């Protein structure tokens, strides 16, 4: 995942002329229902970019809650593994996921040299 993030940054920077910019912050949106552990992503990113053009950049992560929709009564709810991800209102299986699958670079804060 860290490699994918760095490749995405490289792709973005190619359009900006990487030598003329300094990236200050990479603002991510990471859903709770993904395979990403935010602190691990930050740590591996920091280690991977040491000495590179992204060395001085900082990762910020907005956690997007895992939210489902009960297919019986249409109420939104926060699925929990302790409850088998079922809706607490009607005890229905997890059919529709509203949010929590996000793996996004929301924005990049940078300065021109």
């Amino acid at each position, binding site marked *: *995942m860290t490699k994918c993030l760095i490749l995405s940054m490289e792709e973005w920077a190619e359009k900006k002329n990487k030598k003329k910019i300094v990236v200050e912050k990479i603002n991510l949106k990471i859903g709770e229902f993904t395979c990403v552990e935010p602190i691990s992503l930050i740590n591996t990113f920091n280690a991977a970019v040491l000495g590179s053009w992204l060395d001085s950049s900082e990762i910020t992560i907005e956690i997007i809650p895992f939210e489902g929709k009960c297919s019986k009564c249409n109420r939104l709810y926060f699925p929990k*593994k302790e409850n*088998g991800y079922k809706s607490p209102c009607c005890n229905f299986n997890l059919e529709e996921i509203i949010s929590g699958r996000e793996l996004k670079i*929301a*924005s990049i804060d940078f300065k*021109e040299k």
Partner: protein
Amino acid sequence: MHLPISDKIELNILHQNSHQAEKNKVKFNNYNLLCLNIMSSPGAGKTRLLEITLEDLSKKFHSAVLEGDMTTNLDAARLEKLNIPVVPITTGRACHLDANMVSGGLKLLEKKINPDLLDILLVENVGNLVCPAEFEIGEHFKVALLSITEGEDKPLKYPIMFREADLILITKVDLLPYLNFDINELKSNITSTNPKADVIEISSVTKSGFDLWQDWISKKILKFKNN
């Protein structure tokens, strides 16, 4: 130095992989070749499943395998004995196959056989219940294996794998009489995480469930070819 600029890009971190996966899928479609991504934890029985499956399947359909493994070609060597085209993909330290690796594997497969002659490509992913679930490879269907020795709670602990799967094979069911294992609890955990998945109980020892699994594959191939 100028003032900071905020570029709001809203870009999927995995977009490069997704883009390559789409390209792989277009290739599979052009070859009229159905691709299954077979995933599980290490030791759930993926390679043994493929050995038994391909003995029968390759009599009806032209089959090939891309065999993902971190460090060896041992699994690929087992499958090559079945006289079908097998391409090993050794991932090194990577704990999953990604779309680029599968694209490379497909290029090697093209040197062994014209994929137009194939009906189905089985991709055995690296044994891991986490990362393979997030990385599309261009497959048409995802198949997840879960052996009963892993415990009833795994669909709840690794929900993304079991949520993403189109078919879940519960393996090693011949061990049920010897384990304190509640298969109904496992099925309930699968259904609550992914109500849309098909579920088949299977044993590579007694061969129970293989008729249902072969039937599932055959129907998918025929439906794919007719579209």
